């Protein structure tokens, strides 16, 4: 939309303020140059994000604490994985067999305990400000790296699209494309086929009538609405015309057995669709799963429903990507906005706990079979190698070769950094 010109003065003043940032830019570049051979070339990398909205309990999943004190300790224990020394929650038996493929970060830490702002933070690397919405990293990736083909570079399953998953001031062009829920009966992407009885000649005539209709409106359009909507209109038409798109979304062409293996859940089928999309060249797929906000009834829900879903889906995805030789170029992230309180509340639930929580990263050249950081025995706080949210986002950008020190011009004419300072990419994940 309307971008203000970048005044030299404002650039200088910002540059002076952030003296530190410049020193670190050099480090970052050196770091990138030093990336070893097993990391894929940035342009070959794709990302699948399993986004567990609501806040996954680290106790029952990636950071089990069998020795936690009474009132904190989970009703569920831990199990060994295929990597000696690494334990995960007992509700993750399938994923435990693939621990050699992923790194568990047990020392994520932030201060934000509100769903909206914590999700915005985790998905942008920017502590949210009321005056400014920041672009999600899916959008930044869509903007910074040219798409591989006509498929949308940033696709989201689940939905509807939330504010913090969007492009904000980068412009609606980089918003995610919503692929709905592939677990639905007779799933297809809505509106990807022309309605019955309408052929492309009709579409052409309709479009010429549309151009005529919009002529009037342009006079009042100071915000670039016509251009923005036309861009979407064109993108939509390209997709409707695309054979590749029709093929990519055709999840029913997968063998029944594989579909079962992923699990007939939104998360499971979302992961399977994500693999298909990545195969067809989509760079970033976010598979969203809701219902992780376990203030109530945590143990029952997470053991009968939520973790078994995640476990099947995640393990099947790793196995499938691996068999197809795609794991080396596809990074899979299991993410969430915060963890849950050590204390079990009166409703048999745990509340929001941003101080210490876990993320998991697999593939894309990330060395698996290890844990990063640690929390104390009650998971009260991080005691080793704290990793802050912006650090993690910087790591993703570093892997993709995106200059994470660059400035963007926001819609209010204010230059903003792509990630909130200070931060440092997590070297352990880059090498």
């Amino acid at each position: 939309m309307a971008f203000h010109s970048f005044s030299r003065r404002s650039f200088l003043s910002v540059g002076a303020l952030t003296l530190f940032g410049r020193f670190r830019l050099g480090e970052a570049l050196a770091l990138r140059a030093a990336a070893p051979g097993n990391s894929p070339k940035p342009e070959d990398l794709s990302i699948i994000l399993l986004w567990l909205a609501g806040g996954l309990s680290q106790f029952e999943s990636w950071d089990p604490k069998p020795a936690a004190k009474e009132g904190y300790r989970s009703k569920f224990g831990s199990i060994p994985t295929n990597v000696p020394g690494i334990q995960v929650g007992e509700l993750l038996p399938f994923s435990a067999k693939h621990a050699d493929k992923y790194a568990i970060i047990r020392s994520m830490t932030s201060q934000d305990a509100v769903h909206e702002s914590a999700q915005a933070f985790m998905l942008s690397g920017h502590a949210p400000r009321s005056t400014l919405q920041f672009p999600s990293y899916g959008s930044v990736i869509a903007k910074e790296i040219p798409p591989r083909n006509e498929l949308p570079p940033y696709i989201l399953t689940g939905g509807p699209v939330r504010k913090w998953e969007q492009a904000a001031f980068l412009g609606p062009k980089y918003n995610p494309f919503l692929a709905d829920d592939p677990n639905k009966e007779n799933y297809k992407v809505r509106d990807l086929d022309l309605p019955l009885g309408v052929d492309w000649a009709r579409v052409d005539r309709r479009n010429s009538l549309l151009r005529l209709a919009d002529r009037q409106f342009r006079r009042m359009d100071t915000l670039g609405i016509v251009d923005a909507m036309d861009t979407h209109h064109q993108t939509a038409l390209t997709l409707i015309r695309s054979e590749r798109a029709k093929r990519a979304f055709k999840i029913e062409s997968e063998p029944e057995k594989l579909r079962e293996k992923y699990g007939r859940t939104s998360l499971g089928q979302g992961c399977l669709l994500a693999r298909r999309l990545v195969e067809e060249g989509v760079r970033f797929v976010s598979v969203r799963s809701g219902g992780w906000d376990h203030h109530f009834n945590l143990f029952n829900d997470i053991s009968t429903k939520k973790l078994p879903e995640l476990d099947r889906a995640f393990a099947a995805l790793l196995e499938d990507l691996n068999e197809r030789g795609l794991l080396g170029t596809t990074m899979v992230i299991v993410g969430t906005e915060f963890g849950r309180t050590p204390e079990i509340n009166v409703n048999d639930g745990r509340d929001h706990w941003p101080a210490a929580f876990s993320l998991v990263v697999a593939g894309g050249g990330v060395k698996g079979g290890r844990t990063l950081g640690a929390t104390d025995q009650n998971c009260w706080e991080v005691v080793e190698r704290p990793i802050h949210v912006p650090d993690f986002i910087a790591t993703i950008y570093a892997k993709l070769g995106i200059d994470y020190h660059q400035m963007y011009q926001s819609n209010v004419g204010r230059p903003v950094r792509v990630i909130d300072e200070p931060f440092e990419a997590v070297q352990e994940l880059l090498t």
Partner: protein
Amino acid sequence: MRIGLLLAVSALPHSIANAEIGFVDDIAPILTRKGCSGSNCHGSVRGKNGFKLSLFNSDTEEDFKEILSNDDGRRVNREQPEQSLILRKPSFQMTHGGGVRFAIDSSEYRTILEWLASGAPYRVPGRPELRNLEVSPAESILEGPETEQRLTVMGIYSDGSRRDLSRTVNYAAQEETVATVDDSGKVTARARGETAIMVRMPGLAAVARIAVITKPPSADYPKVPRNNLIDELVFDKLQKLGIVASDLADDKVFIRRAYLDTIGVLPTPDETHRFLSSRDPNKREMLIDHLLERPEYAQLWAAVMADLFQVGWGTGLKGGYQLFRWLRGSLAENKPYDRLVRELLMGSGPFVYTPTPNFFVGLMQGPEGMATQFSQAVLGVRLECAKCHDHPFERWSRDDYFGLAAFFSRLERKEEPYGRFEHTVAVRPDHKPVYDYLNNKELKHPETGEYVRAKFLGGAYAEDGPGEDPRPKLAEWLSRADNPYFARAIVNRIWKHYMGRGLVEGVDDFRITNPPSNEALLGALAGYFIEGQFDLKRLMRLILKSRAYQLSAVPNETNRDDTINYSRFYLKRLMSEVLFDAMGQVAGKRLKIPGSLPGEKAISVAVGSGNYFMKTFGKSEFRDVICERDHQPTVTQAMQLISGETVHELLTSSGNLIDELLERKELSEEERLRTIYVSAYARPPTRDERTTILGLLRDADVDQRKAVYQDVLWAIFNSKEFAYVH
């Protein structure tokens, strides 16, 4: 933390009695002002190089401790104060990542040195406390780049005394592209636009507004008629800024705009025709009065307020429907807004059978959840951050947050066996002081450990008796004429609904550092609303009848860049329900929506997102975000409009407008086309549109003509002119 503070103080030499310099009044301001506690330096979440201050020194006690006692007190040297790190680093006698903050002989250096030498007290005993900041001029207009303006800042103290703090405070411009400010308070204009200048002291903030114009308002500035007080304040400001307002919108544009904004439907071709052909000079006023009395008014506004009060979220379908219907009834009878909110606030009973308890959505998270919901929806204030820490520069402290929560502390959300278990909101009869029934614990201040007392936001304690339900006191406080939030919050929301932009943007984000674009106007509107006993329609009438509302959206040379001063009508996207209904209205078909009764319109869907179309265009599944809907266009929307079933069904189902027009053999193609255009846009086709489309129709047989009309209607539904109020 408290213990650390005591230790630090008791470890000091006994020279405090002579001290003239205190940390709170003298030292912390230096750290704020010199940028030490800014978000890029030691004020960042993690501090810098192991030294961490609170952001802009909002927590002076912590900062005091960090400097004097943390890390074994290594930052100060009591025997040789000049050897202290907090002097040697910023004066760059030692390497310092932040460079030189002040020189060795500077006043800052000497103040800190003297403070250390005199025993480094937290506060100088007996000295009055700083309570408020006053900045003048509060508003100024600068002509042309490089023009300067000096700001004066007065501190107001607990004993009523005043002191010039112009050289003590920290200054920052919100938009540095518009104006910059140095640390003496000198503002320099940079480029045309408006910005706020923030003035900060630890824990306090004030703001000055600066407008930069490029040339002085010309003497022949056009005189425009002013319909009421809104126009006085809008056009006064525009004149000062040298911005000329757009012309009055013509009648065709006006009737469509007034219908969509006030009642959420399009005018019928008949209504448009009658209005356009009337010669009554007061026809706009008459139309406005008429629209506000139409039954669709309450339907539209119930849908708008349903978002605000999160209808159906967490209280279930039936309960949501109850509250929705109650809202509609209240709006239809034009219940004064203070009464409406009071009735919501006083609700109790089962969700399924009584409407108002469904308001207590936040109670799922206990009294604190209600404090968050209530302040955001009703007061326009985001309090969430005050739950964990005092706000860096706003006045909200944890006292405010928990004080507001205490008003809801006697409420309990419980399950009652009414045949089956139903949720109920009930007032506890027992006499526990202040209780969080959700978590079954006494509600105490997390820092002081004391019982929380009900406190009006930013004001006095409610002085409620033990066991008393304090809600009536909160309701009474809302409707006081001097309540600083209640009227302004709703007035701003209504203003935004009609004018496309809030005077405060972020309608739930009123705070000192987010000032209104036109303070005088917001104040006047709130005053008018209170004086009119919180009469919603009276306020809307004032807005609708102003010339400002009736301006054209077409910009001129002077106002093209203006996005905050209402110099032209700002384009607004139709709400998804209104868009869906409008398409059905034009096509002459009302499509069935899941979750609604047959024949009901989209605007009447109380709970849930309706159908896929409505969801795609922004109606949320749960009204779980109190703030506003997202109106950004998306690719998914474009696909919906190109090949989606809603549009296709409207174009092709039998008996629609196209069928009806084609059946009426007496009509010419031109008349048919005109009917379609007037239905959709309240205007006839332009010459180009007419020529092109009649050309397509001329050589077509019946089937082909039908297809042409379908394509025309498709183009209309895809057009921006249709999707926007303009």
